[in-house]
């Protein structure tokens, strides 16, 4: 086995914990993971294949079925590009096994190639999930499909990930360079991550809203013109459908040459860039450092906030609701008229427009805020550092207050600001705004209490990276489901009570949330203390 394949094998076995799955004791886990993977494949095939099937009928009517093939090219291309920007920094720069690999008698280029091939392996999985269902529909619907088209599709399938990876790596390098110069380098990545998530959500909503034959026909006509004018799409069709050798070679060169250029150029400076990124600049001596004193609760809350702002995965997973609420309130301010029309359209169950507006605003605020709970991971994230809090001369209540402080800081200021924007933009009465404000504050408190309560019940103190706690722990999942349950239960109670005065109902909901928070606080400060001591 040559060095490159050994490196790649070791990386894949380590990244995907394949040895753990071989272990007889982990059979259940292995079966579960295979089942989940198959479910993901099935979902992708159903969702993407279903959408392609729907579009293909329209394209057939228009005599433009080949456009479907362009989708099988452009969709994985775009997704891989966005993913590569996100993934490249951790795989190519300051990666965990850098010291180990660079100490081995291996050429820098080989290390880089192994890292790139590792990303490429993953890319093929995603490309298969996105591109193959579309191609499958094309194969079924195309009346004169030849074997040459299939072979050329496979050839392009192999070549496609190379270009997004090259562009993604250059972008990642630029982002890394910018972020190094910034005081708080995570800001660039956090803003980028939220922009990406919102873009994906926006695209998803747009796709759903255009599932109308006439809209699709118009869009496809425009897309057909775009295909003709954009040379890469045109080349792709000429290559795969037209079997044109020159077009095939040109397209392959466009996809693959930048990749080799990147490997060669970056390979030469690979070690230099990584060394530079790992360096830490000399800091001031102690004479220039300011000491500030705070109370224990504030000190713990500040420590929590510091960790929060330094852990990108923590922010992107727990703040999305707040970002959505804020952007939604800005959107309401910009498009107030359209919101009014929307609300007027959906004024059902005999409610007035004002009540409908209050109902929609309350549901949106509750939903966005209650799902935002950094506290659901805050105990678990202590992990190996738990000894610090446990050896301190502070009672558990103080620790919990500090941790709740993070939840309140993350939710309440943005929530209150959003409520003010909504109040001005959508013309709520002052009393309605006060009720919305109460709801906002009570949701922030409830989300924090609920998160801490669930985390104390389901702590996960052993983990390799915060991602395991923030994304995959039982506490995070249960906290989200419990939040959803509270939202749905409130709506059901409201409809069962046949409430006619929505503002009054929202007021009661806000008070009920505060009472529920008090119940959680009682548990946290009694049984929670005992659980914490036992951790």
């Amino acid at each position, binding site marked *: 086995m040559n060095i490159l394949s050994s490196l790649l094998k070791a990386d894949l076995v380590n990244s995907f914990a394949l040895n753990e799955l071989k272990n007889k004791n982990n059979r259940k886990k292995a079966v579960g993971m295979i089942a989940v993977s198959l479910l993901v494949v099935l979902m992708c095939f159903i969702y993407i294949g279903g959408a392609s099937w729907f579009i293909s009928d329209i394209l057939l009517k228009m005599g433009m079925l080949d456009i479907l093939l362009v989708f099988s090219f452009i969709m994985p291309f775009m997704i891989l590009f966005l993913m590569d920007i996100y993934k490249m920094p951790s795989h190519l720069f300051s990666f965990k096994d850098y010291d180990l690999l660079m100490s081995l008698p291996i050429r820098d280029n080989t290390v880089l190639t192994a890292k790139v091939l590792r990303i490429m392996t993953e890319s093929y999985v995603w490309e298969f999930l996105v591109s193959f269902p579309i191609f499958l529909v094309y194969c079924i619907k195309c009346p004169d499909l030849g074997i040459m088209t299939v072979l050329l599709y496979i050839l392009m399938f192999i070549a496609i990930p190379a270009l997004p990876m090259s562009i993604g790596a250059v972008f990642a390098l630029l982002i890394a360079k910018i972020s190094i110069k910034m005081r708080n380098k995570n800001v660039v990545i956090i803003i980028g991550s939220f922009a990406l998530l919102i873009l994906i959500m926006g695209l998803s909503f747009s796709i759903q809203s255009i599932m109308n034959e006439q809209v699709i026909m118009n869009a496809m006509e425009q897309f057909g013109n775009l295909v003709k004018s954009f040379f890469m799409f045109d080349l792709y069709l000429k290559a795969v459908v037209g079997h044109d050798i020159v077009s095939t070679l040109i397209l392959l060169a466009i996809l693959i040459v930048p990749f080799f250029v990147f490997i060669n150029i970056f390979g030469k400076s690979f070690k230099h860039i990584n060394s530079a990124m790992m360096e*830490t600049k*000399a*800091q*001031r*001596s*102690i*004479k*220039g*450092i300011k*000491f*500030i*004193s*705070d*109370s*224990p609760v*504030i*000190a*713990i809350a*500040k*420590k929590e906030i*510091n*960790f929060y*702002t*330094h*852990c990108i995965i923590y922010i992107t997973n727990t703040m999305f609701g707040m970002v959505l609420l804020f952007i939604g309130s800005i959107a309401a301010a910009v498009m107030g008229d359209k919101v009014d029309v929307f609300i007027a359209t959906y004024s059902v169950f005999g409610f007035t427009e004002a009540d409908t507006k209050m109902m929609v605003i309350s549901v949106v605020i509750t939903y966005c805020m209650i799902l935002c709970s950094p506290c659901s991971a805050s105990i678990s994230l202590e*992990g*190996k*550092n*738990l*000894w*610090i809090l*446990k*050896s*301190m*001369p*502070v*009672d558990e209540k103080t620790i919990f207050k500090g941790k709740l402080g993070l939840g309140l800081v993350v939710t309440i200021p943005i929530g209150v600001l959003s409520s003010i924007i909504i109040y001005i933009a959508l013309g709520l009465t002052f009393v309605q705004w006060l009720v919305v404000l109460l709801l906002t504050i009570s949701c922030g408190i409830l989300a924090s209490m609920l998160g801490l309560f669930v985390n104390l019940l389901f702590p996960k103190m052993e983990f390799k990276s915060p991602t395991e706690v923030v994304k995959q722990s039982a506490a995070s999942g249960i906290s989200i489901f419990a939040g959803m349950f509270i939202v749905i239960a409130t709506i059901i109670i409201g409809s069962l009570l046949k409430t006619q005065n929505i503002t009054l109902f929202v007021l009661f909901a806000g008070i009920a949330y505060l009472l529920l928070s008090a119940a959680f606080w009682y548990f946290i400060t009694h049984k929670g203390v005992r659980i914490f*001591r*036992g951790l």
Partner: protein
Amino acid sequence: MLKIDNLSKTYKNAVKAVDGISLEIMAGDIFGFIGPNGAGKTTTLKCVAGILNFESGLILINGKNIKEDPVGCKADIAYIPDNPDIYESLTGVQYLNFIADIFKVSKADRERLAEYYATKLSFNDALGDVISSYSHGMKQKLVIISALIHSPKLLILDEPFTGLDPQAAFTVKEIMHTMCKEGGAVFFSTHILDVAEKICNKVAIIKSGRIVASGDLDSVKGDQSLEGIFMELAAK
């Protein structure tokens, strides 16, 4: 200063890590806790530091029961673990500020003590850096400074010399001596028997959760070296 009476601790897997140990540490003592890997040293230290619960026995720190008044006990002690797992996203000075806030150290005292110990451990220039950029030894130094910033009466250290450079190790020993001269006490575990022999006035040897020898250094080792007596007891 510290009294442990009949302490027992069993883990969830029914393993009895500590089995009825008793010992006493007076003001001015440097007490070495010696034993092979897995003997129960860290478990004992963690119980004293209030990190681990225990089923039976008594731990008194300055007359205060750790179970009844954990906050009061912890205010008098500082615990330094064997592995300096600390908040990686904070800077050194932020971490010191955090610890000083919790122990309610005044602004003037924290500035004075941080500067004093950072200078002693040659750590001045690294205090402004983020902890994630520190080496193991640097993290260890920071944990030691944070432990001393609130002037504890009892210092509990788990393998304190692991990862420290010779100069820092010497300084730590010096600090331990100074602390004891000023009426404090040090309780530490170690594998390095030479160090224990040189700096401790009392030792206890623990094996499979039980103390097999304890008392003044001279009475424990007799005419032999500490290494000799340790090997003899470990082999039994």
